[in-house]
């Protein structure tokens, strides 16, 4: 994962972050559950990335003579209602689902963390305003918020990602704010300020690296939530556009053929389950590994 880069740049003045890095790896390695989760994620990621070069039929290649065929040698996962190869659609669907999960979390982190840090750092009216809006958004059930955003932006995969990203933002605002509040009273931050280090460099070099671990954990877990959210939006017809596949959209179609072609519903659901499980296991492992109390 990309967690090492901000910590590296923090340099020697951020002692806690430096020590933590090697410790985390060591602990993660000894956790079979986390490793298993990581492996699941990596396998799906590799499949998604390799989709264009794998020897599979195109995801939109229709074959009217092969509609809703059960799994066979020619079509290992069977075919769908348009005679399209489900293995191919599953792999291309992995791209949509993982991409949606990761991008929406990146959006949430990029919007949420700066706002949270500013709120925690500045306090006063800035904090009050940001906090009230955050609380308001947190009070609206996540999926309803995402449905509203997605309907507003119009159905497409990109818009679904933005909708999910925005809906997940408040969690990161709150987390970053809380962490900033805790860290800003630490000695090394106070001494940096006393030494005349500017506001932005202080935030960048002292605050950010030290609030990063819980945010990384939260981000990993949120990817899992986001993948389910994308599937839910596509399930309601607010995500990926046809004929391109996404697991949620495939499930949405499959529910019309539950009696005649149950396999159409089984694969995408199982894939969502596995990849989400992977992210959850990984996130849990990271949380334990990053938790200072467990040393």
């Amino acid at each position, binding site marked *: 994962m990309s967690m090492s880069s901000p910590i590296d740049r923090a340099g020697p003045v951020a002692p806690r972050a430096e020590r933590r890095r090697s410790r985390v790896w060591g602990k993660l390695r000894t956790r079979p559950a986390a490793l298993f989760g990581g492996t699941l994620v990596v396998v799906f990621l590799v499949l998604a990335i390799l989709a264009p070069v794998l020897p599979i039929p195109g995801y939109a290649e229709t074959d009217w003579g092969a509609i809703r065929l059960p799994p066979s040698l020619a079509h290992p996962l069977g075919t769908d209602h348009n005679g399209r190869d489900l293995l191919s659609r599953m792999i291309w669907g992995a791209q949509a689902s993982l991409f949606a999960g990761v991008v929406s979390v990146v959006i949430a982190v990029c919007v949420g963390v700066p706002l949270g840090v500013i709120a925690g750092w500045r306090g006063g009216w800035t904090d009050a305003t940001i906090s009230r809006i955050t609380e308001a958004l947190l009070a609206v059930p996540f999926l309803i918020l995402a449905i509203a955003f997605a309907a507003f932006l*119009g159905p497409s995969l990109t818009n679904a990602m933005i909708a999910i990203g925005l809906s997940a933002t408040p969690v990161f605002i709150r987390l970053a704010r809380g962490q900033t509040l805790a860290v800003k009273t630490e000695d090394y931050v106070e001494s940096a300020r006393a030494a005349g280090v500017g506001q932005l460099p202080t935030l960048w070099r002292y605050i950010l690296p030290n609030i990063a671990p819980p945010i990384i954990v939260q981000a990993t877990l949120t990817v899992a939530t986001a993948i389910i959210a994308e599937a839910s939006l596509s399930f309601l017809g*607010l995500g990926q556009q046809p004929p391109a596949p996404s697991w949620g959209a495939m499930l949405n*179609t499959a529910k019309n053929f539950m*009696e005649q072609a149950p396999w159409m519903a089984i694969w995408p659901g199982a894939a969502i389950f596995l990849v989400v499980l992977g992210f959850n296991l990984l996130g849990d492992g990271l949380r334990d590994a990053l938790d200072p109390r467990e040393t």
Partner: protein
Amino acid sequence: MEFKRTLVTTAAIAVLSSGLQAQELRIGLQDDADVLDPDQSRTFVGRIVYTSLCDKLVDITPDLDIVPQLATDWSWSDDETQLTMTLREGVVFHDGTAFDAQAVADNIDRSLTLDESRRKSEIGSVTGTEVVDDLTIRIDLSQPDATLMAQLADRPGMMLSPTATAEMGADFGSNPVCSGPFSFVERVQQDRIELKRFADYWNADEIHFDTVVFLPIPDTTVRLANLRAGDLDMLERLSATDVASAQDDPDLTVMDVVALGYQGITMNVGNGEGAEDNPFAEDARLRRALHLSIDRGAINEVVFNGAFEPGNQHVAPSSQWYDERFPVPKRDIEAARALLAEAGYPDGVDITIQVANNPVQTQVMEVVQSMASEAGINISIQAKEFASMLQDQSAGAYQGSQVGWSGRVDPDGNLHPFVHCDGGINDSGFCDPQVDEYLDAARASNEFDVRKENYDAAREILNEELPLIYLYHPSWIWAMDARIEGFVAYPDGMIRLEGMRATD
């Protein structure tokens, strides 16, 4: 099947005639009805409920002939602007109010003047009514209107109790009172609508159920599972792909009939921004190429297992209004490619077509997309929520839009609003004075031959211009418990309970 009766009385009833059983009919609907006021409502399922609740002045036969219901006889004045109807004697509304000519006058007035009324344009040709005597009413028109009788066989012709409408006003839908075979009991939003047998119904001998319950269950698979489990006695709109398995089930009966509506692609030829920089709007040859690239039979087979009827006109090939000179075209890729080349696009042309984001319509569009691509027409599909799609369609923010029409008994309702320059729903932006002339003439006559001639003349132009590319005519498909007898499939998709009964 859930025929409610107590264990104690079962034996006794079995000895007596079966007509004494307290029978309940549970019908699964695809959607929940909207407001239960025939003057305000707009949903198809609402009309299914009214069919049991509210009698109309006239009704239709399965062949779409107009037959008496609350009006027993009628005649037109020589200039066809006055319709005089004789009303059925001894009819009462569910609240005991007598049905008479004044009630008809009040009802027509309400349809025309209630603020919330959606019926205004449907009977827009009506200028007033005259109570001739207790059981005779005269309806005056501003001009001859061939569609009026068909309208009176639908919601504008439904008779509501004047006592109830006076008392409830626009809130009539919370406790509707009509004169149909069943009266309103209760409604739980998105859950159930319950009606009970009306003892004083004029045709009560034909009614064999004591209660009818309508249950909205949107998911077709779930609806069928409920029927199989015995929680429903009947359902409407069985999914075409479930027909085979339902037919194989000895406990179920499947009935179907080609509906009055159609599904097609509305092409934007002159409505707002979507018609600009759009080669398909500028050149009818491209629309013809798309039209020819589609194998309508294959769509029907792939998406609907052959349960629907391929089509290329505003009425189905089985209709008496169909123009036989233009049969459903065979797919012709070569001709389509030639048309593309002629129009200056030998290397292919792009178009974006929007579709409602439900799996079935999306699949239809995916099939069309794959067929058209072989002719060099590259379709991008935009799946939108129905509400957004309609808005973009109205506003002209689209190039092509795959959309359906539920259909009307009179063919005018399937064509006039869409292609007449002043058509109420002319989202295509098509306008041709010649076509307008034919459609107006067809509307102004009550003679079948005159009307058919005019529709055929219009079809000749429309078949070249193709503002709408029709794809297929859906069938209404009902599935019911095999013990239900006497159901007759009507092309308007309604469920008429007269003569229906359950046997043991």
